[in-house]
């Protein structure tokens, strides 16, 4: 059934993409081909190519409990790996506490709708998916050292296999927060590849999340210009503005890519 759906979706996407005859259409055709391949063989096309992300393996130590399938789904070079860090001019205890209260995360993680703590160590995550849909999963804290480390992973059988850890260190310039995420999003690496073509690079996304985290903690708000007055934007944009504007639009586009993204 799932393969059949892939075939239908692939055919529709290919038709639409071929009609457009532009960059977006081309991207759609690439995505369509992957869906058709998956439909026909039950395998992920890019997955088989040895991993679009092979270069990011770097001997990542996976935090996963051995009874879950998360280890299997994220082991080796599978899944997407993201590492980013930020330094926050606030005491380590305050930074740790804010993150440890997972309910706070959607305040700065743009694609998260909500996180609810269910029972000790288990939380329910809701992320914004494509086209107004939602992706939900449960995660469990598998490692926690006060003011030092939080590690989590999705429960067995989740739609998204995800694991992550955050490290907190005191430095001369403030509290250094290092985030390491792994996820296997719906659509696998194909999803991330397409996302990348659209300008939504997971590292940059996480970097922007961490930037908002820092700004929220340091200043109590996130700077914005949305809603400020401007003059007429009509007519052709300045070429450089057009470029910047395009990138910005893409960054606003939501595309579910897993745990904290």
């Amino acid at each position: 059934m799932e393969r059949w759906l892939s075939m239908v979706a692939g055919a529709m996407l290919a038709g639409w993409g071929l009609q457009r005859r532009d960059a977006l259409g081309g991207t759609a055709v690439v995505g369509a081909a992957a869906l058709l391949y998956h439909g026909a063989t039950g395998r992920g096309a890019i997955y088989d190519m040895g991993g679009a992300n092979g270069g990011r393996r770097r001997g990542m130590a996976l935090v996963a409990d051995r009874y879950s399938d998360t280890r299997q789904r994220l082991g080796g070079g599978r899944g997407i790996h993201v590492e980013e860090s930020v330094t926050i001019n606030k005491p380590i205890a305050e930074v740790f506490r804010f993150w440890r209260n997972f309910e706070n995360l959607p305040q700065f993680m743009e694609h998260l709708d909500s996180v609810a703590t269910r029972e000790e160590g288990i939380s329910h995550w809701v992320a914004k998916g494509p086209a107004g849909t939602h992706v939900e999963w449960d995660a469990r804290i598998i490692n926690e050292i006060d003011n030092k480390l939080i590690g989590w992973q999705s429960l067995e059988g989740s739609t998204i296999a995800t694991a992550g850890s955050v490290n907190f260190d005191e430095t001369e310039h403030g509290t250094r927060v290092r985030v390491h995420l792994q996820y296997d999003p719906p659509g696998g690496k194909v999803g991330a590849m397409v996302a990348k073509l659209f300008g939504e690079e997971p590292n940059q996304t996480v970097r922007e999340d961490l930037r908002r985290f820092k700004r929220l903690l340091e200043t109590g708000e996130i700077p914005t210009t949305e809603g400020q007055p401007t003059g007429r934007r009509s007519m052709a944009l300045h070429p450089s503005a057009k470029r910047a504007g395009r990138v910005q639009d893409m960054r606003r586009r939501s595309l579910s890519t897993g745990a904290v993204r």
Partner: protein
Amino acid sequence: MKAVCWEGTNRIGVQRVPDPTILNPRDAIVRITSTAICGSDLHLYDGFIPTMERGDILGHEFMGIVEDVGQGVTNLQRGDRVIVPFPISCGNCWFCEHELYSCCDNSNPNAWIAEKFYGYSPAGLFGYSHMMGGYAGGQAEYARVPYADVGPFKVPESLTDEQVLFLTDIFPTGYMAAENCNIQPGDIVAVWGGGPVGQFSIRSAFLLGASRVIAIETVPERRRMAEQAGAETLDSMDPDVFERLRDMTGGFGPDACIDAVGLEAHGPHIDYYYDKAKTMAMMSTDRISALRQAIHSCRKGGTVSVPGVYGGFVDKMPFGAVVQKGLTIKSGQTHVHRYLPKLLRHIENGDIDPSFVVTHRVALDDAPRMYQTFRDKQDGCIKVVMKPH
């Protein structure tokens, strides 16, 4: 409200736009009583600064009356008369805590664009491109001021707008340029550019103890203004500026050189035409003939201080002279907040009256014409102040 908008290279318009509103708890709205056109606005006018968008509201030198404050602002209230520093600074980050206000880590919503250009993002600025935050500027009837508990600085009623307006940018900018020269008693300071920042650099160099200041400027009325401050002057189109500076300093060279010209320098030498050709062919972004001459002219072990705005890449930078003569180069967007109490005292004491620089007083509606007049240095134009209210 009415606002001065960027409509493309060489195109400025006055448009009706919505009034600004409080968007964040630490915002304030200021009703603008005086606002100036800065020399650096001319770089936007001439299309040298990337990431401008049609409709962007210009202006970063403005002051007025606090009209409204967000719930996070407790040190200001409606009716306060304030000047607003041009860099937007949060006051909380490591950089603000170290008084590097123009390097604020948090105020640029488009930090990621600036990071592509510069590695790390400086502070957001009012009305100065999307790379610098895309904030609406203050050449308008009202402006929204973020982090209003940090930026706006109350000024006494006893001083006129024109006496305090330039605390927003050009006075501290000239002052920081001079301070960066680490002036010792007896020092000779050479200043390239007799525009407003150059004029304040000259006066600040004297305030900080320079024995002589030599201004290099081609426009006669600007040279006269420099001479009124006690500077000696040279014509920048004179092909022998280096030789003349050498003579005037007994073959020693100026102790410090200030480039208050920036990326649209003009000069009499072949290197100017080289820069011009390269920037026109989009192979380089900035013209640096003033900076080259400053580096070449500076004495060994001296300081080159650069308040002039550069945006991107420069070509044929005489870095050998920097290394071989052991020069110190200091620059940066001005950390305005750092200088306000001290400079206000200088104004109150009568050490300096910044209103000397104003040559044109006009209405907001006159902005398009005045950008041109200022850019083309017509009509003796050195500084334009507009009165929206």
